[in-house]
């Protein structure tokens, strides 16, 4: 029997802005149902990669497929993905519930039934009838995650999902990521919080200056530096000017 097709595949993916390279010749394969931790210092090209994979930006060259669909075909890709950018895309003027009703309406009303359970799960049910502009950063983050999960996507892109969350909410998000991954959803997780990646990711990729400088399971990566090292040690090593000399 053939193994299932990977959730994300990129080949020679390159993105340049005014001649400056943001991503250079990126080859990446993310298996279906896995959690892929995407690491890299600020400006490494993580956001550009996510924007290409979510069809928000065109690559300069190279190809990428998400859930088997080419990123050039937005209509095909967006059926399969959920996306939570670093700044949750919410209308300040709507209430939390109206925001979710809006997204459910855009995607097809059969998802309306999931709204209540997700609001309850993320402790947002009490505040669902308040305007988004009155929400704290953490509440906005949770609401953004709920709307990304509403249609039970095949691939979930999360950019700093635990940023600004209190410990309980952060735990809820981590548990949710584990659950959706167990239910065969692929999670593409970009974050600076390395313990989150260490806890959740099946595979980790480290992007540095647009290049994928390390890839493997957290154990493989930590073993590659020296025994007893952490993911932070790996990150610092592969993103320094002279790897191995840190």
């Amino acid at each position: 029997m053939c193994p299932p097709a990977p959730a994300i595949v990129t080949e020679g993916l390159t993105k340049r802005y005014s001649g400056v390279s943001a991503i250079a010749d990126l080859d990446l394969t993310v298996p279906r149902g896995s959690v892929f931790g995407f690491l890299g210092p600020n400006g490494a090209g993580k956001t550009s990669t996510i924007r290409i994979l979510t069809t928000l930006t065109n690559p300069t060259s190279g190809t990428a497929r998400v859930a088997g669909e080419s990123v050039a075909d937005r209509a095909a890709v967006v059926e399969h993905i959920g996306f939570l950018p670093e700044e949750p895309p919410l209308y300040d003027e709507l209430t939390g519930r109206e925001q979710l009703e809006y997204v459910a309406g855009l995607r097809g009303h059969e998802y309306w039934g999931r709204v209540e359970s997700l609001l309850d799960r993320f402790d947002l049910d009490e505040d669902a009838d308040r305007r988004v502009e009155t929400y704290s950063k953490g509440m906005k983050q949770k609401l953004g995650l709920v709307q990304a999960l509403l249609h039970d996507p095949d691939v979930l892109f999360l950019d700093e999902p635990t940023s600004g969350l209190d410990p309980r909410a952060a735990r809820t998000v981590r548990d949710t990521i584990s659950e959706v991954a167990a239910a065969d959803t692929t999670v593409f997780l970009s974050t600076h919080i390395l313990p989150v990646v260490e806890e959740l990711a099946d595979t980790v990729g480290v992007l540095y200056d647009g290049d994928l400088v390390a890839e493997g399971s957290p154990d493989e990566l930590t073993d590659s530096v020296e025994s007893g090292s952490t993911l932070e040690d790996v990150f610092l090593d592969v993103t320094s000017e002279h790897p191995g000399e840190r």
Partner: protein
Amino acid sequence: MRRPSGRRTRLIARTELRRTWRKLKGTTRGALIFLGGGLGISIYSLAIGAGAFFFGGALADSDPHTVRLATTAGIVGLLGLVGFFTLQHTVKSAGEPDAADGLLTTVPYEDAAAGLLAAEAGRVSLALAIPIVALVGGLAAGDAGVLVALVALVGSVAVALLGTVLGFGLGLVTKLVANRSAFVASHRASVGAAVSLILPLGWVAMTAVPTVQLRVLQLATQSPLSWPADVVLLVLGTGGNSVAAVVATAGIFGALPVGAVACLWLAGRAWYADPVQPDHEFDADERTLSDRLLAGRVPTATRVVAQKSWLRAKRAPVTVQFAVMPFFFLVYHLQIVILERVVPPTLPLSAGLASAAAFGAAFSLNPLGGEEGVLPLTLTANVSGRAFVTGLVLAGALPGVVVTTLLVVGLGVAAGTPPITLAAGLTIALVATLAAPAIAVGTGVVFPKFESSSVQGREVVVPSGWAFGLYFLVLGVAVAPASLAYLLAVRDIFAIPFDTLWLLSGGLVATVAIAGAGAVAGFLYAANRVATYRLD
């Protein structure tokens, strides 16, 4: 409340003025405002200087009543002008520190408020410096004399500062009411419409009427506002009440510190007040009017886009405030209504077209930029470009049809328009109302705008000026044939060699053809652009 620190007040005021200067210098918009404002002020200053030079002496020799009238007009005009602009600026931006959390945890709020008030006074002083110099110079160099010029200098500076304090205080009161009033919070759309459309339109129409101006001036001359004229009369030696002069002088100079203290007190209330946010009761089974109108008739995605647009506009009218602009073209008609007490025959169609242009622009003129930070969601939410754009068009067209019909029919009946002409006018306006949002989405994607501007203290992405220009041009070309035919039908400009019905029909056919072509082209282009748009 504590006494503000002079050092910190000066520091804050200096920093604010420096920021204002850099905003004017560093952006194209700022440079245009600076150049345009500078040119306008220079022209007015020349006129003021010349007027003071040539007529100052004649005024000084006039009878006491004329001197009182002229002085009072100057005081009311200056006080009203400075007060109005300061109020507006305070509500919009100057009434609150930009980085409030940082500043208010660094210095006492009294220092911050005093600094902002001083900065506002500095801006007003800089803007009025040239006109005041021109006035004083003209008076001194002309026949009025140095003493009158000196009184004019001290008086105009004092009145300008009083206007600043008054406007700043009223601006803070406005902010406080807007934040704390449950009524305002629940009726933002109605209040927004009144503030942005009815009040300014009414004000412009009323103040243009000489009888109204004269009545205001007569009332002012019978009030304490005319007492400073006694100072001028005493200086001229042509009469004047010395008690009134002393009270006026003490009143103006006493009101300045009292007003400033009131401003500090108000700032403390306005800045630390918890804003009222009405909760929205949710009933899963409740069907709104728009649900009943649209559910089952249009695709769900289209319906929710239209409903989202209406909800945003209702709760934050400032996001669509720009769209009321076409109604300001009706000022001339309104003046005729007030002065002559008749409804001009062209007003029904003009009002209908203004309504069409306004509703067309409100939700559709910036389809991409108007989504603000939610654009990534919109583009990845599995909604087709056509469904999304149809939702925006529907958001403008549906209420537009209702308002346009009410305006055209109501004003047409009031104007005594013949039924056939009225029917033609209504048809033209409705064609424009239906075509306008589709034309707007097309021009909006040709010239999208993503940068926000501060409108009434809130960052809002308003459509680009180029999109506005192109939209008005296309809509104007589309409605021109039918509007011209309507004009010829209601006004005897020149004899036309065929029947009115044929004239109106011909104009209407041409307008339907042009508006239809523009609407289809705009809609299809916008739908395709939204579907394929990338955030590069």
